[in-house]
Structure formats: C-alpha cells, structure tokens
C-alpha cells in the first residue's frame, strides 16, 4: 500500500509537530499519542517515516548498522559497503511474542548445519527508525519490561537459548492508546519524550475533507502522492535543515532557568523532565529555523514535554494540560 502523504493529513497539528520534533532530535525520546481510534495516529507516524531521507546502512545488514555501529558492535555486522535504505518503520503487534520482539535462535540453521545463528527480531528491524505500538497500554507486562530496557539503553541484549548477542537498537518509540482502556505504567510513560492528545475532528467540514482526501488516495495513489510531493518535500527540507541547525543551537542560561522554574511549578518530578523540555524547545527552534532558543519555544512545547510527567493527584481532576498552561501564565505572564 502506498503511504499516505504526511502533508495531506488534515488537522492534528500537535501530533504532527511532535513527530517532526522527534525526527529532528531522536534523542528527545519517543512520542506517546493519547486518543481514540481512527484519528490518524498510525497514518501520521507511517507517513513521517516514509518522508525522512534514506539512511546509509551496511548492505545486507539485518540490523541496518551505520559506520559507527560497525565500530561499536564488531561481532554483529561485518560487511563494509554502505548503501542507502529507507528509514525503517516497524509496527509491533500487541500479541507479539518475546521471541519475535527480541529475536531468537535460527532453528532451521541450527538443525540443518549445527550453526548457532541469531534470527533478529522486531527490535533489530526498528534500529535507526520508528517502532510503533498501537494500544501500548494493553501490551503485556513482560514485553513492556523488555521494551523499556532496550529503549533506555539503545541496545538489545539477548541471553537465552544458548545465544549471547548484543546488537544496537536505537529507535523512536511511538505509542498510542486510549487511557479509557487502561493506564500506562509510569516508567513507560516517562520514557516518552513528548505526549500529545488527539481527538477525532468534530467539525463536519474537516471530516468531509478527510474523507475526500482518503477517497482520492485510494482511487489513484500515484497521482495523489505526486500532487502532495511538493509539500512533503518542503517538510523533508525543514527536517533536514533543523537537524543540521540543531548542533549549532544551545539553550541559554535564561531558557534553562525558565525550564527549571516551570518544572518546579507544575511538580514534574526529576531532572529528566527539564532536560527533555530544554531539548524539545531547542528542536522546535531548529525546526522553525530560529537563530536562538527562546522562551516562546519553551512555552510552545511545554505541554507536550511535561503533561505526562506531572505527579498525579487522584482526587484532583484538573487536566495536566490545564495545570501547565496555568503555571505558564503565572510564571511568564
């Protein structure tokens, strides 16, 4: 199936912005999308992956190793030639088994030739790309555990079935789920750099527009893609420029102070919130082509970077977003 053009996605600006920021600076951590089904979550994530410039990876490498990976994991990847390949996008099914996710012993080779070979799993496939998990809040506990570990360390360590394998697995985790169907473990939530809330558009005109676009795409995907190619190209350029600019941007002392004050005011625990807020503001500035990181960027990105980190008071029903906007208003006027 041809992918839906990123620029043709109607509305959902917050989600699109979060995805672009994650693309500019993957070190921010993944994006968690809260919301109903059918709001274009997976379409957007998929579209973004297809939009990004191809990566250079070792030819035939099952892990998509870069030059640096080859140096760090000499046992994993040996072929030297670098060829370009699209940014991987892996859709992890809820019912995936542990074997399938982390990889397992290649039985066929073990039986036929007595060779102990590792058959890479989804984590290997997702290296340097996106790992998308729909309904992540329903994911089985032991899978959440191993995902957390890999997402935190950037490598997958397999010690089972007689195998001892260590391979790089750095990916942007994109999760989505409906909080009405179950809570997410706080540790997992904390792993996400940004979180967004999406709702199905209530405006009739918007809904009609979406239906029209989807129908057009289904009728003739090629010319539809061609029609949006220009705008997609523009987004691609923005991301590429943002990536290049990122290294030159540094958040100043005043922005750091703002970030610290804001985190303190809303009660976002830990240093990680501050660091993420600061990095996200920088990535936003880079994406916008700004010359420096300012308070404006910080304020714009604060709800996304902080709303899932607030300490929860069960009996206080005020939404996280409201608490953040209120704190921003009090602190910065």
């Amino acid at each position, binding site marked *: 199936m041809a992918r839906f053009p990123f620029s043709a996605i109607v509305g959902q600006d917050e989600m699109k912005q979060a995805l672009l920021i994650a693309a500019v600076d993957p070190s921010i951590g993944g994006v968690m999308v809260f919301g109903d089904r059918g709001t274009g979550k997976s379409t957007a994530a998929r579209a973004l992956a297809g939009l990004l410039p191809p990566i250079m990876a070792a030819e035939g490498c099952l892990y998509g190793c870069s030059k640096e990976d080859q140096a760090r994991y000499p046992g994993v990847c040996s072929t030297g030639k670098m060829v370009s390949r699209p940014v991987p996008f892996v859709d992890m099914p809820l019912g995936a088994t*542990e074997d399938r996710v*982390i990889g397992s*012993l290649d*039985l066929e080779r*073990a*039986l036929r*030739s*007595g*060779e*102990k*070979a590792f058959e890479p799993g989804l984590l290997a496939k997702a290296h340097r790309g996106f790992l998308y998990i729909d309904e992540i809040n329903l994911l*089985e*506990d*032991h899978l959440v*555990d*191993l995902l*957390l*570990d890999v997402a*935190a*360390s950037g*490598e997958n*360590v*397999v*010690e*089972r*079935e*007689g*195998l*001892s394998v*260590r391979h790089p697995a750095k990916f942007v985790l994109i999760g989505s789920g409906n*909080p*009405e*169907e*179950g*809570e*997410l*473990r*706080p*540790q997992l939530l*904390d792993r996400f750099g940004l979180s967004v809330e999406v709702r199905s558009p209530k405006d009739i005109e918007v809904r009609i527009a979406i239906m029209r676009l989807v129908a057009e795409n289904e009728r003739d995907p090629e010319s539809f893609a061609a029609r949006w190619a220009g705008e997609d190209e523009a987004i691609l350029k923005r991301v590429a420029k943002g990536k290049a600019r990122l290294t030159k941007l540094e958040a100043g*002392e005043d922005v*750091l*102070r703002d970030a*610290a004050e804001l985190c303190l005011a809303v009660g976002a*625990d*830990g*240093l*990680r919130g501050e*660091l993420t807020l600061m990095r996200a503001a920088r990535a936003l500035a880079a994406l916008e082509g700004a010359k420096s990181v300012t308070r404006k960027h910080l304020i714009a990105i604060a709800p996304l970077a902080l709303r899932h980190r607030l300490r*929860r008071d*069960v*009996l206080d*029903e005020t939404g996280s977003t409201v608490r953040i906007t209120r704190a921003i208003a009090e602190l910065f006027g």
Partner: protein
Amino acid sequence: MNLHDTADPLDDAVLAARLFALAPQVFKGMVLRGNSPAREALVTALGVGVTLRRMPGHVDDERLLGGIDLAASLSSGRPIRQTGLIEEARGGALLAAMAERLDGAIAGRLAQALDEGGAAVVLLDDATEPEEAPPQSLSERLAFACDLAASRRWQGVELVPAMGTLAHVAPLDDDALRALAATAEALGVDSVRALIFAGEAARGLAALEGRALTDRSDLASAVRLVLAPRATRLPPQEAPDTPPDDQPPPPPDGERDDNSDGEQQQQEPDLSDLLVEAAKAAIPADLLASLAQGKAPRRSASSGTGQKRKAATRGKPLGARPGMPRGGAKLALIDSLRAAVPWQAVRLRELGRETGADPASPILMRKEDLRIRRFEERTARVTIFAVDASGSAAAARLAEAKGAVELMLAQAYVTRSEVALVAFRGTSAELLLPPTRSLTRARRTLAELPGGGGTPLALGLNAAREVAEAVIAKGRSAALVILTDGRANIAADGSPGRPQAAADAETAAKAIAARGIDALVVDISARPGPEGAALAQTLGGRFLALPRADAKLLTAAINAVQPIGKAA
C-alpha cells in the same frame, strides 16, 4: 544555574561506586534506585573501571548458569557445554536494569552466585511506587544502596581511582567494631552481612585515600553508605547506653600500637553517637517518613502483584517440562532437542546394531525427549465494590466510597489489579463499572452515581456475585468489598418489605460464600448496627465498621484487611 553548590545524592553514590570498583568481590554490588540522568552517568563512569555485563530480564537459566550448547552439540554429535553469564561476568559485574521487576527465580540464582563468591551485581531499581522493590534476597546481599531519583547532576561524573588497596588497610580495632555494632543496633539493622559490609567499607574508604588506618570519618561514611539505607527504625533521641563506652578505651595492643588517637577519643564525642548522627542524616527521606508513621519499609514487589499462575499458552516464558504437545501446550523445540542431544551417540549405535541404518540419519528423537513450554501468567485480581447507594446508607457517605474506589484504582497499575463497581439502590442493582484499570473511565462513572431510595441488598449481592463469577471464569481472582449498612428492605424481586428482603439477602450471601469468593463488608454508616456484621458472617468474610472514615482512611483499612492484588 548553580548545580554544584549543594550536597547531591550523587556524591555518596560516587563514593559507594568507588568502593565497589575498588573491590567488587568484597562489596558484591550496589542497588541504584531512581531512573535519572545522574544514574546513567554513574553507571557509565563505573563501567570504566569495572566490566559491566548487561543481563536482560528475560535471560533464561541456560544462559545464566551455562548448559549444553545446542548447535555445537548437534553438529558434533556429543554434548558440548557452554559457560553461563554469571561465569562470564566473573571479575566484573552483572548489570540488571529494572531490577524491581526481576524474576524471583533469577534473583535466587544470582544470590547463590553471590554467596559462592566471584560474582557481583549492580541493580538498577526504577521503582516509583512504594510497593515495588528489587527482590530482597538479592538487594540484601549487596553492600550499597543509593537513591539517585532526586539528583540534579549528570555531567562530569567520574570515579577517581583508589590510591591504595583494601589489603593494605589494617583490620578495624575493637572500638570501631563495637561502635559499628551499636549503630546497627540503634538503626534496627539486624543482618550481620550489613555489619561486615560496613566494616569493609570503612577500610575501603581508607584504601581510597591510600591510608593504612581507618579513622572516624571513614566509619561515619561507612555507616552513611551501608547502614543508613538499611535502617528499619529511627535511632533513639539520646544515644543508646548499650555500647560499653563507659569503659576506658582498651590500650592499644602490640600489633596495632601505631593507633595513636587514644587520647583524642577522650575529648571527641563518643564514637557510636557520632555514627548514629551520621546515619540519621543519611536515612532516605521516604524511609524516614514511613518509619515515622510506624510502617515497615518498602518490600519486594513479588508479593504485591497479582497471583502467578502457570499457563500453557501465554504469558512470560518459564522454561519447559517433559510432556506431550497437546491440548494447547506448545512444543518447546529447543528444549526437546537439548534433551535428545546427549543420547545421540548411544541411540545411533543402538540403531546401527538393530537395523544397520545409515549412521548419518537426522537427530534421533524419542517420546521422552519431548518438552512442552510453560508460561507464567499473572492473574489479575479484580476487586469488586458493591456500593449501597440507598438512602439508609446515608447518601452523604457515598462520596467516601467513590473516593476509595478512585484511590484503589490509582494503585491498580502497580498491583496490576482491576476494579469493578456495582451499585444498588431503589429496586435495582447495576454494574456501573465493568472490571477496569482505567482511572479516567472510573472517575466519570462514579461522578454520575446517584444516591437515595431503598436497599435491595439481595439484588446487589447477586449482581456482585455474577461479576465475580465472570471474573473467575476468565481465570482471574475476585474479591468483594461490600459497602453497606446491611439493612435490607427491598426483596430480590424488587418488592418492599423487610423480612423478605433480609431472607433474600441471606440467600444471596450464602451463594457467595458457597462459591468461596473473598468478601469484606464495610459499614460506613454513622451508627453501625448488627446487620453488617451478621452479613459478613453469612458471607464467611470480614467486617469493618468505619463510621467516620474518609476516602483515604477507607482505602487504608481495606488494604490492611485485604491487600489488593495479593493472593488470597
């Protein structure tokens, strides 16, 4: 921002890490609590001097302890052993992320390896709730525990190498040993292992600075690093008189006559007082809070989660056992092959004698080789609230019941338990909230719960029983919490009348008792009567009268009587 001007929890953690790096075999390891950038930096710094081998949580026994190398064995036709992770990490340390989720069986293996010597473990504890903690069997065996959750530093962390070695530091003198023992006593640290760690830590601190003798500050730091995190009670306000500090310090004996601070000790404050003070300052804040409330410090999660159940089809893989793959049980191919490998040579010879068959035939499998997979599934526990929303139960108290349900739900993601809510009033009972873990949804439902009307207790009990039965049918465990005054006045058919209502309620209660469902009756009315207690008795459950409970108290009481998520 001035990040370096105040004491940071990282300072002590760095000190502990330096000690650990000095002698990994002696200190066995450390627990680093709190997922923070500081911890990441510390682990990176530690990795410079100590080889850290990452151990994934899904490691199997085969890799942990070593076993038969399947592929090599198959190709050579005879069993070939391979070393395990514990063996391979010898000299360095195993690094376990998310240690609070570490499987009890793996923890047991590691504990054994630690006791045998040669192994060391670094546990990264990501727990955010008091109910979670790494297995105690393991953390108790590691010298240090540091909490870095609140640390504000993450840059420029490095471990300065020690100037001396542990072997060059003299053993502690009797005074020091006595003072350490007294301090451990004052803090309620019973484990002798902790005491030994503290002593070695004191010597290690001297070794870090290249000294041959330990001094008072070494002892104080050792107490801070080793004993304070293990405290189970607050030291008494006055220093304990138990240490024999009224005796003059023993004269320095021959082998330690260079210990010349004898007269200094006369002027300085008593050593054990000093140590207790040092410990006090370092007892973690949350521990302090729970100790002050007279609560036990947090303990391992293994008891706080849902009941574990061996399952044949899904869940976390547990290993295999001999058996035939049928009835949904899956064949564990690798384990089956592994079981067959050692016999290949023998079987080939047998086969050759009997039939003269081609010796290059594939693997000879027999029925007894077959292994089937086992999985562990945590059975979620579902707590079903049956809330009496009638006028007699005082609708005003409904708010507390609602609050309690919300609070228990808030804990639900930790204990992996679910909550359901049945309300009964007027002439009907209704399942308002099917078993869920969703706070959002529960809150909305609860907000809409009205009060007033008669008390159709029988209907409420029946509805609750039906929910419980459905839960049990799905292989989960169910517990009932019934909030009512027990004064039934609506019969099972919805008609008013006290005698019939009471009789119907008794029948319904007996049905619940007959199913063996756990039940707790909580009477939150202003003047609890005998009816609630009688109901509890018929149910074969427990009874709580809480005439003035608020939501928090109610939750605490329910948890105390019947811990949510704990196996019955």
